């Protein structure tokens, strides 16, 4: 998988999580995944279409998701507030992926992002030769956050194209 497609997701997760939690975030793990993704906690899925196609699963340990929802929502949230916790994870996914999509579009990649949906199945679709998945694990003050990115690129070289365009 092209690292220039991945780096904006790492930067965006780092920035959005650190701003939302008002504390530092570190990337703990980075690995390629060939097997189908197994959900770890509360997860949201976002699909991309256009020159870059694929899906991103944003997955948060339950305990961390509850803390994130409380922190970002400014109200005490418990594990029984299922809807609120899932909504918070979806919105966080939207912000992180949206900011990464912004950076990639401004670099000349043209594609569209769909609204996030809750990812409730235990297992995601298996990655293929065209859509290798990269799994990133972030350590935050609220707990562990994972992002599984499976993308493929259909367009021409964006940098060359934008250079020609002037």
């Amino acid at each position, binding site marked *: 998988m092209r690292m220039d497609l991945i780096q904006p997701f790492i930067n965006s997760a780092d920035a*959005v999580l650190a*701003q*939302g939690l008002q504390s530092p975030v570190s990337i703990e793990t980075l690995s390629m995944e060939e097997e189908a993704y197994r959900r770890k906690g509360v997860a949201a899925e976002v699909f991309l279409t256009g020159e870059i196609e694929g899906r991103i699963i944003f997955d948060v340990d339950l305990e961390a998701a509850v803390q994130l*929802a409380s922190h*970002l*929502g*400014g109200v005490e949230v418990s594990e029984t507030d299922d*809807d*609120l916790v899932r*909504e*918070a994870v*979806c*919105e966080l996914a*939207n*912000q*992180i*992926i*949206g*900011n990464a*999509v*912004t*950076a990639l*579009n*401004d670099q000349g990649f043209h594609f569209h*992002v*769909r*609204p996030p949906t809750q990812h409730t199945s235990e297992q995601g679709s298996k990655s293929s030769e065209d859509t290798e998945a990269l799994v990133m694990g972030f350590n935050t003050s609220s707990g562990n956050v994972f992002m599984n990115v499976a993308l493929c690129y259909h367009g021409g070289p964006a940098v060359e194209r934008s250079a020609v365009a002037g």
Partner: protein
Amino acid sequence: MEKFAPVKRSEDGQPVRYLIVDDSVFARKNLARMVETFGGQVIGEAGDGVSAISEYDRLTPDIVLMDITMPQMEGIEAAEKIVRAHPNARIVMVSSVGYQENIVAALQRGARHFVQKPVKPEVLYEVIKYVMRDDGTTARGAGA
């Protein structure tokens, strides 16, 4: 949350009335909490562009905070339709997807401003004052 001098409507001193449009209930609640710290009043919410248009027609708010990526009808199209019917509508796009092409499209179709998510309250506050301009006033008399 930070304290802000309330932004009021200059014509009658009443709170600025907001319509908040976002497919995320969580995001709507956060924005509502934020504008209430600016002294505003949330008079309506919508979860997609189609509902946003009907809610605007029904409520005629002072400001619309409009997400872009939404099901059924996206925010930019909804903003265009609202402004076509109500040329004085003040619509602020609030989205995590803030690439240049998107911002330009939103502004060309009648949006007054763009704020990128995650929203910083101090940024949104300044945008609200700017968008209200002569139609808004703050309690400290700093003007709009």
